[in-house]
């Protein structure tokens, strides 16, 4: 035999899983919720989603190709995922130029300036979203009404927005409850909100798929939602006149989207199960503190970003259990 053989150290066999497959599976998990948002918000949802996804991919390609002069990684699907998650976090009537700014901030500042996929400390889509929320508070909190709503109104408040507004003006919960969606509507997404906030049920469905494919672990979403429920539950039990029940807090707003799809981002979340629990509990506490006592109606994005900052510390403090009982 004269053919040259390949030489390399072991192992000679590798998993057929890849970074690309992981990213595309997360995209796939978000498709049901995306379809629902299109049904709910119409072509506006398509516009926002396409614009965000394409601009993220384009920015990543252009910056890597012409500024960083490195091999582009756009085909790995992570830029598209950032775009989709960003789209899920904004109102469907957001002007195109604001979306582009959000995409640019997410990709250029939050991702590539840290070295690209794997180097970023903070979740790029959330950084983009928070940047927009702070820079364009009016546009970012004007929520369009569902095509299916039987009303002439053009905009609607989010359930958390209604709650916050009511609480700040000192009205008791009972007076507000007529304006708040019920649990069934929260699950199905019959409420105001950003693209991806509006269907808890479909988001959970995608989450189950990701759990099955071992792309996310149960620790992060469960610890976030459970902490939120306990936190909200304590206040609800003490004063149900003023505080709404925990289930409402979990199903309204971005809690489900954040807990399943944003906080679980592999790059920016801790690695061991124990650290993931601490991380999730932290997100839950910060989220509820902002919701109940902060100026913003919703706090998931801030909470995740803050805990992203703790991830390197958690990773270095909490080591996996070593074989043989000795820990480093």
């Amino acid at each position, binding site marked *: *035999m004269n*053919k040259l*053989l*390949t*030489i*390399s*150290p*072991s*192992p*000679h*066999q*590798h*998993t057929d*899983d*890849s*970074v690309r*497959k*992981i990213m595309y599976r997360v995209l796939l998990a978000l498709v049901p919720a995306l379809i629902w948002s299109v049904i709910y918000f119409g072509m506006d949802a398509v516009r926002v989603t396409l614009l965000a996804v394409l601009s993220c991919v384009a920015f990543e390609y252009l910056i890597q190709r012409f500024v960083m002069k490195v091999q582009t*990684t756009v085909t*790995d699907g992570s830029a598209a995922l950032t775009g989709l998650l960003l789209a899920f976090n904004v109102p469907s009537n957001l002007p195109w130029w604001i979306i582009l700014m959000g995409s640019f901030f997410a990709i250029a500042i939050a991702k590539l300036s840290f*070295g*690209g*996929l*794997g*180097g970023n400390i903070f979740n790029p889509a959330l950084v983009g979203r928070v940047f927009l929320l702070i820079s364009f508070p009016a546009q970012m909190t004007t929520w369009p009404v569902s095509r299916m709503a039987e009303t002439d109104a053009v905009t609607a408040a989010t359930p958390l927005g209604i709650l916050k507004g009511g609480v700040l003006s000192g009205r008791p919960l009972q007076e507000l409850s007529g304006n708040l969606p019920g649990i069934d509507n929260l699950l199905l997404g019959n409420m105001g909100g950003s693209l991806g906030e509006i269907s808890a049920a479909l988001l959970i469905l995608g989450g189950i798929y990701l759990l099955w494919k071992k792309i996310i672990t149960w620790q992060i979403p469960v610890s976030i939602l459970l902490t939120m429920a306990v936190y909200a539950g304590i206040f609800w039990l003490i004063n149900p006149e003023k505080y709404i029940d925990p289930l409402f807090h979990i199903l309204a707003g971005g809690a489900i989207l954040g807990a399943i799809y944003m906080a679980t981002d*592999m*790059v920016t979340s801790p*690695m*061991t199960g124990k650290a993931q629990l601490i991380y999730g509990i932290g997100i839950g506490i910060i989220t509820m503190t902002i919701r109940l006592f902060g100026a913003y109606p919703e706090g998931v994005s801030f909470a995740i970003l803050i805990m992203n900052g703790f991830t390197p510390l958690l*990773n270095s403090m909490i*080591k*996996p*259990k*070593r*074989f*043989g*009982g*000795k820990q*480093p």
Partner: protein
Amino acid sequence: MLKTFKLGGVHPPENKLSADSEIVELPLSPTVFIPVGQHIGAPATAVVKKGDQVKTGQLIARSSGFVSANVHSSVSGTVTKVDLVPDSGGYPRVGVVIKVEGDDWDDQIDTSPDLKSEISLTGPEIIEKIKEAGIVGMGGATFPTHVKLVPPRGMKFEMLLINGVECEPFLTSDNRLMIEKSDEIVVGTRLLMKAMGVDKAFIGIENNKPEAIRKMEKAVNGISGISVVPLKVKYPQGGEKQLIKAVTGREVSSGALPVSVGCLVSNVGSAFAVYEAVQKNKPLFERVVTVTGKSLRNPSNVKVRIGTPVSDLILFAGGVPEDTGKIISGGPMMGKALATSDVPVTKGTSGIVLIPEKQAARKPQLACIRCSRCTNACPMGLEPFLLMTLSENSLWERLEKEMVLDCIECGSCSFSCPASRPLLDYIRYAKAKVGQLVRSRKH
């Protein structure tokens, strides 16, 4: 619930293509090349020279230190040279080249096929026999068995574990040996127990080998102290520490030997070799090797003399397929890629696996996304992604603290990485560097 080890582990596709192929004997090659260093420790010293006539089973190189092993001729014929020849790693090694003439076995060897189950020797006598026969760990580690059998001062064995796990994909030689030579393996197990002075032995077999489990259970039936333990399939269960954990629940602590928890692990192939050495006076000069691969015409289990060129083995199984891109000595998880098939089969060669070109090359390396798969896969509870980064940055002292020397090089990390990162390459490098550091401190 079947037993298994707890931490980490992966499930590579099993691909046991040759599981049902009976062991067949390979016809003798015209020449053999027998390296004098086929084991861990000091190479043996050749005791033959060019022109000598040797018989099959005759000593040709004598153990040269405490950790070393005798080497015997696997054929009869004339020594044509004692010289440097490339071994399976491509390094030139001293070896004895013998031109094969007939097959004239040493008169001492009992060639009858009858099972000899009576044990007449004492423990130390058994160990001496094992030493004479040059038996080494045949699962691939090749540590001289007689050295392992004597516990360090102040320590005592409690039990023997026979390793019939064969967790490497593709390999089936241990499986076939257990099916076809179960009684002999049990006698070998009893001999090892006597040598160690213990009355308890467990034979661990993964439950993807139901026939081997059945045969071994039948063979131990009525023999006190030995039992078969079926294990849940999980790589790397054949690792010494993992097997001890799976069977006994005990954990060998960092840097310690299995004897620290009263255990000794021996491969089924070694147990069979012990039987042949002690009961049949036959030194270790042949072994069962799996020759396999998805494109190979006849994946087989072959009984082959030590020193036979790997190329002859592949030829016997149908020749090198057109699409071959890599030839592995050992299994695909821990085996060594060969540069050429013109290298000899040695005592540690458990299999030859031919990998198609498409799977031979590695995929391009991407950035780590901290998916935790390497950490979850590591059976030692290490953090491969971190060890690789530290190794890239030459932080040897930090690596020592992170217990890099605990790594058993099973390859589960590199196997599971979705970014195709060469984790184990960097960890191996770090192990060598940290090992140097530790040794330099002792002097």
